[in-house]
Each structure stands twice: as structure tokens, then as C-alpha cells.
């Protein structure tokens, strides 16, 4: 039996070792990501205690369906993205190892303060990675907002500790369910704001524009898929399973998520640079997924999250590679770029269409489930908002695809066909990664059962909003 703490401990160990043997740090990174991706496949569900002290006194790791889906996505995508962009590592190999450990810890931990520690680890690696673009003022802006956010999260959890006397998630969720929800508005709001900074919910997402728009083909997909997925999983864990929200608070937070969705999609419509379009689409998707988690629709939210993570990994890799090799990601200047890079182009198209939710792709399955799920939950305005968002998303994505697939004004495909100074090159490692991710999206669309059964024990999360891992806390007291 493999203990999931290894997913955190081994990358950390390798990160510490990589400081001593500097020359081998890239090899250690590849080894670590491969090791983690392998370990994920051998895990058994259950509760794993750290230090030998039973919860709520000690820290525990919780590996239920939800967390298992999270670490599968995180470790799998981390491996693919790292292997795709090894040439972009620069000095960041040790930082990436720590990031891997931090992201796994975020999803696995069953303790609120331990979550804060992992939140800070992950956030600090993100600040460092966002300085890869040399736009330090954006990285600084992110640092200030992120630190403020995690500070507010800490504030909220201390208020909870003062009242309930425990930090363990399962213990807290039981104790909080016994209290009138109006008593919990303040700590819930503080924790919401703290996480909203990282999850990119309006109006706390001021950092996203600067940080995402300058990312390269390594940092872009990492942020938009792996980090985003990790943070959303944490958000889902806390707001769908731990903290009970009162009706009014729940509705207003869902509205905030829906507003984020609309604002993101509308902003994306008016942009011409590919990475800017994608970053606003990311904001929109985060708003959507957060709204679903807040409505208690955990299962469909996870599906949409997986779809978003897979698609964004491809989209940001291609967009980042365009910017890295040609120096621009302006849609006008890259007209017809895919005619010379058909495989990458097809991958990009699959990802974009899956993101919109067209049939054949995984996105369709997730969007159908999502709409039915919401209708069954007696909410009639949210599906309308989501459909509206989808229409807007479809408009700009198709417009972008048409631009990238059709040649420019001259009508000739040659090295002068697009107006960039340097030609677009895409390394074979990236093409292979894109193919792998596109195939996953296609399998998910054509044979949904394969992904569904592997990612979650299908349906088990749909019915249970309360955590499945509740254990007997009163024992011994």
C-alpha cells in the first residue's frame, strides 16, 4: 500500500537534493514528475494520518474520490507540461518540484491550517514562476494580492478555531453543521475572499491580466491548467463539503461566480491577442466552476474542471509557443499559422471546441451533465447565464480558429504568409504532448464512461455533498 504522503515528500526531498547537486536539477525534476505520476496510479482511497496522532489532533490526508481526481489531474498534467517544455526550464527546476509538492498537498490535506501552509507554498512558487516573463511589476502585484488573500483566509480560519476549537476539516464540518448558518457569515466570507484571489473570482482577480498575458509555453499551461485546477479543487473541497453556507450568502456568491463568467467572456470577446483571449476565458471558466461548486453540484463542477484543465493546457502551450518563437501572439499577425503546423492546429482546435462544449469532445459531455444537473436543482437563471457565456465563448473561439486556419490577405502560404518577423516553430515534444492531451479529450467525448470511471467512482460525489470521509470523531472523547 502506498501512502499518498509520498506524493508530497518525494518531490520535496528531490527539491532539497537538487540544491546540493545543481547540475542534475533538470534530471531530478523529470524523475520526480515521472515518479509522482506513477505513484498516483497505485494509491488506495482512505484516510492517512501523519505523525501517528489521530485527527482532529494530528494532521491527516484525505484521499477520497474528489482528491483522487484532483491528484490524477495535477500529476498527469504536470508531467505532460514539464516534458513538453523542458527547454524553458531555465533555473526553475527546484521551484517546480516544490510546486508539485505544494499542489498535491493542497488537494490532499484534511486540515485547514495545513491547507494555509500549502496555499502559501504554492502561491510563492507561482510568484516566482510569474517573474519568468521579466515583468516584475505584475509578479509583485500578484504577490501583494496573494499574500493579502491568504492572510484573510488565515483570519477566517482562526475565527473558526476560536469558536469551534478545532482545525480539522471533517471535525469542523460536523460542528459547523450544528450551528445556525447566519453565525458563520463572517468567517465564510473571509475564507471565500482569501480563496477567491487564487481562484480568480471578480473583483479579486486584478493580478490575472498582467501575469497570464506574459506567460511562456511552460508557465502558461502550468498556471492555466495545473494551478487553476489545484486551487479550484481546494475551493470545491471547502465550499461544497466543509463550510455550510446560508441561503442568502450562497445565492449571492453564486451570482458573483456567474458575473465572473459573463465578465470574463465579454472581455475575451473584445481582445485580439491570443493569450489575452485565453486568459479572460480562464477567468470565465473559473467563475463558472466556482458557481457550480457553490451550488453544491460537485460532480458536474469536477467534470467541467477537468475539461477546462485539459483544454487550457493545449491552448496555452500553443499560444505560449507562438509568442516564444515568433515574438507575438497577435491574432492578425499569425493568420494561417496552423496551415504549416497541422497537428498542433488540430490539437488547438479540439481543445477550443471541447472548451465550448461541442459534441465529439469531452466538453460536450461535461456541459450536458452540467445543464441537466442545474435544471434538476431547480435553478433556472444559472443555465441561461451559462448558455449565454457559451455562446459568447463560441463566437470568439471560432473567430480565432478561422483566423489561424485561413491564410492572410495575400492568400498564399509561404514563410511570408504571416506577418511575424521570425517563423513559427513547434518542437516535436510539444506536438506529442498536444496529441496526447487531444486524444484524452476525444476519448472523453466518444467513450465518456472510460474517463468517468477512472476519474471518479461515477456519481458518488453527485449524491453526497457531505464529505464521504467523515470518521468517528467522538471516539475516545
Amino acid at each position, binding site marked *: 500500500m502506498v501512502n499518498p504522503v509520498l506524493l508530497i515528500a518525494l518531490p520535496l526531498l528531490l527539491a532539497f537534493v537538487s540544491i546540493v547537486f545543481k547540475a542534475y536539477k533538470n534530471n531530478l525534476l523529470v524523475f520526480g514528475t515521472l515518479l509522482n505520476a506513477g505513484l498516483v496510479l497505485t494509491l488506495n482511497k482512505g484516510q492517512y494520518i501523519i505523525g501517528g496522532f489521530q485527527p482532529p489532533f494530528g494532521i491527516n490526508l484525505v484521499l477520497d474520490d474528489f482528491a483522487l481526481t484532483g491528484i490524477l489531474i495535477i500529476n498527469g498534467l504536470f508531467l505532460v507540461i514539464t516534458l513538453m517544455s523542458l527547454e524553458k526550464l531555465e533555473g526553475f527546476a527546484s521551484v517546480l518540484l516544490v510546486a508539485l509538492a505544494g499542489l498535491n498537498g493542497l488537494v490532499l490535506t484534511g486540515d485547514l*491550517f495545513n491547507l494555509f*501552509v500549502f496555499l*502559501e507554498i504554492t502561491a*510563492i512558487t507561482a*510568484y*516566482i514562476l510569474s*517573474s519568468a516573463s*521579466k515583468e*516584475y*511589476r*505584475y*509578479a*509583485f*502585484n500578484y*504577490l*501583494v*494580492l496573494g*499574500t*493579502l488573500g491568504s*492572510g484573510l483566509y*488565515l*483570519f477566517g480560519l*482562526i475565527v473558526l*478555531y*476560536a469558536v469551534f476549537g478545532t*482545525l480539522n476539516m471533517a471535525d469542523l464540518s460536523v460542528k459547523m453543521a450544528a450551528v445556525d448558518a447566519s453565525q458563520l457569515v463572517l468567517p465564510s466570507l473571509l475564507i471565500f475572499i482569501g480563496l477567491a484571489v487564487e481562484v480568480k473570482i471578480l473583483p479579486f482577480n*486584478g493580478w490575472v*491580466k*498582467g501575469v497570464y498575458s506574459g506567460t511562456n509555453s511552460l508557465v502558461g499551461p502550468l498556471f492555466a491548467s495545473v494551478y487553476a485546477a489545484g486551487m479550484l479543487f481546494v475551493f470545491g473541497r471547502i465550499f461544497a463539503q466543509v463550510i455550510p453556507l446560508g441561503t442568502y450568502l450562497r445565492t449571492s456568491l453564486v451570482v458573483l461566480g456567474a458575473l465572473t463568467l459573463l465578465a470574463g467572456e465579454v472581455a475575451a470577446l473584445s481582445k485580439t491577442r491570443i493569450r489575452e483571449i485565453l486568459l479572460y476565458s480562464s477567468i470565465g471558466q473559473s467563475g463558472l466552476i466556482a458557481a457550480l461548486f457553490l451550488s453544491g453540484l460537485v460532480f458536474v463542477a469536477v467534470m467541467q474542471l477537468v475539461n477546462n484543465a485539459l483544454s487550457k493546457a493545449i491552448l496555452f502551450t500553443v499560444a505560449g509557443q507562438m509568442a516564444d518563437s515568433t515574438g507575438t501572439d497577435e491574432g492578425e499577425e499569425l493568420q494561417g499559422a496552423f496551415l504549416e503546423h497541422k497537428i498542433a492546429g488540430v490539437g488547438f482546435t479540439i481543445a477550443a471546441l471541447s472548451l465550448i462544449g461541442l459534441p465529439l469532445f469531452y466538453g460536450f459531455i461535461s456541459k450536458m451533465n452540467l445543464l441537466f444537473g442545474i435544471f434538476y436543482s431547480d435553478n433556472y437563471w444559472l443555465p441561461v447565464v451559462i448558455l449565454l457565456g457559451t455562446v459568447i465563448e463560441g463566437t470568439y473561439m471560432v473567430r480565432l480558429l478561422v483566423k489561424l486556419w485561413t491564410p492572410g490577405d495575400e492568400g498564399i502560404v509561404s514563410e511570408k504568409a504571416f506577418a511575424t518577423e521570425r517563423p513559427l516553430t513547434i518542437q516535436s515534444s510539444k506536438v506529442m504532448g498536444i496529441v496526447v492531451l487531444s486524444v484524452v479529450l476525444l476519448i472523453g467525448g466518444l467513450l465518456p464512461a472510460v474517463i468517468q470511471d477512472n476519474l471518479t467512482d461515477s456519481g458518488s460525489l453527485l449524491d453526497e455533498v457531505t464529505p464521504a470521509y467523515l470518521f468517528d470523531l467522538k471516539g475516545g472523547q
Partner: protein
Amino acid sequence: MIQYAGIMLILIGIYGLLTQSNIIKIIVSLNIFELGLNVFIISVGFVREGIAPILTSVNNHNGLVFVDPLPQALVLTAIVIGLGTTALGLAFARSIYRQHGTLNLDEIGGPSNG
């Protein structure tokens, strides 16, 4: 009393973050925010008749009234994490200064924080 001061410090820190445009002053505000938070956390575990949570040859058994040790352990962690972010923020400040020749975010023209 000290608990109120902690909350006030948090508010002063947030006010500083909203109004300041100088990078160093922003980091100072962030530090004040964190200090206030730390004071608040400790105050949550304070017991007026309690003693410090260390067994010594004088206070030698567990039946005595101790202040809550857990918030103290949490604050120790928070202080070190705060040091990490402060150092990184100041390193960014220096890189920004090298890049733009100023510490004023308004002059650089990036998105202002808040």
C-alpha cells in the same frame, strides 16, 4: 484591548495597501497587516489567569491553567511565512527599480493594486 489593536492593525494594513503607490510602503503595509493578524491569533488563545505553556520545575504539572498553545504554534509558522513573502517582495521591488528606475507603481503604469 490587545485583540482590538490586532484588528485595528489589520484594517490599517488594508488601508495602506489600498492607498499607497510606493512599493516599499506597500510591503510595509503588508507587514503591518500580518503583524495585526498575528497579534489577533495569539489573543484568541489568551487566558488571563493562564501561564505560559511550558512545564518547568516551578509550574510542573498539567493540571495548571495554561494559555492555549496551538495559536502560538500557528503564529510561529505564520511569522516565518511572512518573512519569506517579505523577502521575495523586496527582491521584486529591487528588480522593478532596476527595470523602471522608480518605486512608484503609478509612474510605472501597471495595474494598481486593490
